[in-house]
Every structure is written in C-alpha cells, then in structure tokens.
C-alpha cells in the first residue's frame, strides 16, 4: 500500500475502533476491573486502545450510569474498580446486537458484491 493508502487506512481504522472500545469495555466490566487490568485485558483480546483514551472513557461511561466505580483501598495501592450497572448491561446487549447485525450485513454485502 502507498503511504497515502496507509494514512487513509489508519484514519478509518481509528474510526472503526472508536465505537468498539466502548462495547469491549462494557463487556469486560461484567467482572470488576480497574483501569490497567481492563487495558491489559483488552490488549490480550486483540483490542488496541491507548491508556490516555481508555481512562477518560471509563469516567464518561461512569457519568452516563453505565459503569459503577468504587475505590478499593484494601490493596497496597488504591485502585478504582469499575463494574457494569444494570443500565450498562442493557446498553451493552443492545450494542452487541447491533454489532452482530452489522457483521452479518457487511458479510452479506461483501458476498453479494464479490465477483
């Protein structure tokens, strides 16, 4: 690919991944996670996200009532744990259903347009 194509690809990949990070974070937080554990979990699952994007995102999801946050001070270092709320679970289910619909639509579209 030319450098122009690479540049365009990078922009579109970023757009494509932006929404998936929200869904991936909600799904992962079905079990309590602190920021870095979520970051590593997503990375292991193949979902790349920068720390400087993820931490502010978690805070916004908390403000939207999709995640519940609690500081755990029992450990050597205080950590903020995030857990999916009931509202968050409903939103995650709806987003996941949308994701599956999109996947099947894209698959069908690709099949139809493949010569």
């Amino acid at each position, binding site marked *: 690919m030319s450098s122009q194509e690479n540049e365009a690809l990078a922009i579109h990949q970023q757009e494509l991944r932006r929404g998936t990070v929200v869904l991936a974070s909600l799904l992962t937080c079905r079990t309590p996670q*602190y*920021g*870095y554990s979520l970051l*590593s979990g997503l990375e292991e699952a193949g979902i790349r996200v*920068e*720390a*400087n*994007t993820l*931490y*502010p*995102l978690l*805070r*916004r999801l908390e403000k939207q009532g999709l995640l519940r946050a609690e*500081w755990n001070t029992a450990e050597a*270092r*205080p*950590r*903020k744990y995030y857990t999916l709320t009931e509202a968050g679970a409903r939103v995650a289910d709806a987003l996941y259903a949308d994701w599956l619909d999109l996947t099947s639509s894209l698959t069908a579209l690709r099949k139809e347009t493949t010569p």
Partner: protein
Amino acid sequence: MTALTERYVDVVLAHVPEDQREEIGAEIHAMIADMVEARQSGAADPADAAITSGAAEREVLEQLGDPAALAREYARTPQHLIGPDWYPVYMWALRWILPLVGVAALLVNGIVYSATEARPQLGGLIGTALGQTVGALLIAFATLTILLAVVERTSGAEDRSARGRLPGMRPWTVEQLGDRAASGSSVRADALVSLVLIALLAAVPVIPTSFLYVGHLNGGEPFVNPGLAAGWFLGYWGLLALLAATEVWKAVRARLTPGPAFAGITVDVLIAAFLTVALLTQRVLHPALGDEGLLDGALGTVLAVAAVWAIFACDLVSTLRALRESRR
C-alpha cells in the same frame, strides 16, 4: 510518586474543571503507578528493574502523551469556538447583520456629521463615518461570535435535530436549494451598493462646493445651479426614488428576475433622457463655476450628455448580463 509524575499530573489537573481535580488526580496517579509497575515487572533481572525505574516512568509519561491532550480527553469540552452545528447559523447571521450594521452606521454617522458640523467637508465625512463604522462592525462581529460561542456551549447535545437552528427558523427542505442556487448574496450586495450610490447622487444638488474644498469658487454654494426651477430638482429626486425602489425590489427577491431588471432599465432610460434634456436646455452647473467654460460650453454639454448615455449603456449591459447569468 516522583517529582516528574507530580509535575505531569499537575499540568493535567490545571486543564480540568476544579471540582473534578481531586478525583481525576487520584485516577491518573493510580494509572501511572500501574503502568510503571507493569513495565518494571517485565524486566528479567530484578537489578534491571531498579535501574530502569526512572526510565519506565519516563516511557509511561511519554506514552500518555501531552498532558494538555489528556486533560482534553477528560474534560471533553468543545475545542472549537463555533462547531459545525452552529457554523451555518453564524455565517448566515454575519452575512445579514454585518452589511446592515455597516450601511446603517455609515448613514447615521454621515447624517450626524453633516448635521452637526458647521462646514462639513468630504475628508471629515469619510474619516468620521468610516471610523465609526469600523468600530460598529467590530462590535457587531464580536457580539455575534460571543453569542454563538455561548449558544454552542449551552445548547443540549441530546437534541441534535434542533441544533443549528434558532427559534423560529424553519427546518431545511429541498425547496431551499432553489432559493440558494439562484440567489443571492451577490444580488443583495449589488442592490445595497446601488442604493448607496443613489443616495450619493440624490445628494449632488445640495452638496456645497466647500465640501470638496473648492468653496472659494462660489462662496460655498452647491455645485448645481440653485436657480433651476423646483420641478427639475423634484423630477431628479423622483426618478432616483423610482430607481431606489427597483433596487429594493431586487434585494427583497434576492435574485435578479426580469421584473425588477426591466423596471430598472426603464427608469435608467428615463433618468438619462431627463438629464439630457436638462443639460441641453438648462444651465445645470452653478453659474459661478467654470465661468461658461466647463459644462455650459457646447463641447462640455456634449461631453456631459455622452457621459450620461455611456453610463446608461454600461449599466444596461451589466444588467442584461446578470439577468442571463441568473437564468442559467
């Protein structure tokens, strides 16, 4: 935490709302500590871990990037003064309000200067009117910009369908494509310029010679012969009023249609004919000016009549050309 991390966190917190600083500060400290620890635990030799502690911290901070950018991620406030939702409204307001403010300021300041100055002169009029108008335009521009910037930050993000519309503004429909395609601001701007020129032409019979610094020629009386019968003055102003009406018609329609265009051409012909008759039969210029040598001589009269019809011809060509363009 080292002083380096503290400095980094301080810069981030300086850019976030005050009531969130404590909470965000604790989050960032925990985040950096976890990331540094993860890097150090990745070191094969425990001795290396100690050696690379400072390096790991630097790596983590550099990975997090510009603290101002991190703060923006937390704050998520608009980074633009007027965003895409309100920008069309802003431009629409500027296009409508600034020309109106400019013309109104020019007229008001021009009238006030002429009325209050004992001996009004062109330089003083231009200086006063332009100076005040520039100030009025800047104030109008700043007011609109601040107003829209405030609206941008206070309008609810939840109702995006209503964003970008002021109360009373109709939602977009395809009919507006017709309006915009044919319009325009250029037709309105042309009409506005024409109105200003008409106002200047209307003032010609009463402008004193002292206004253009030649008051010594006729004792500060007007350029035009004050001895002309009143009917000539009334006819001149009446025809200019008709011409002004056709320009207002064009501005209101916001497009050049055959109606106002041909009405304008008709009034132009009447004015040219009126001036021709006046120049050929009357002593139009003040008798003290030119001493029979300028416009009152035969050559001067011919030149003046030729100039009147040349201006008419130019106006006719430009009107017909604009009409043809608008019908494409």
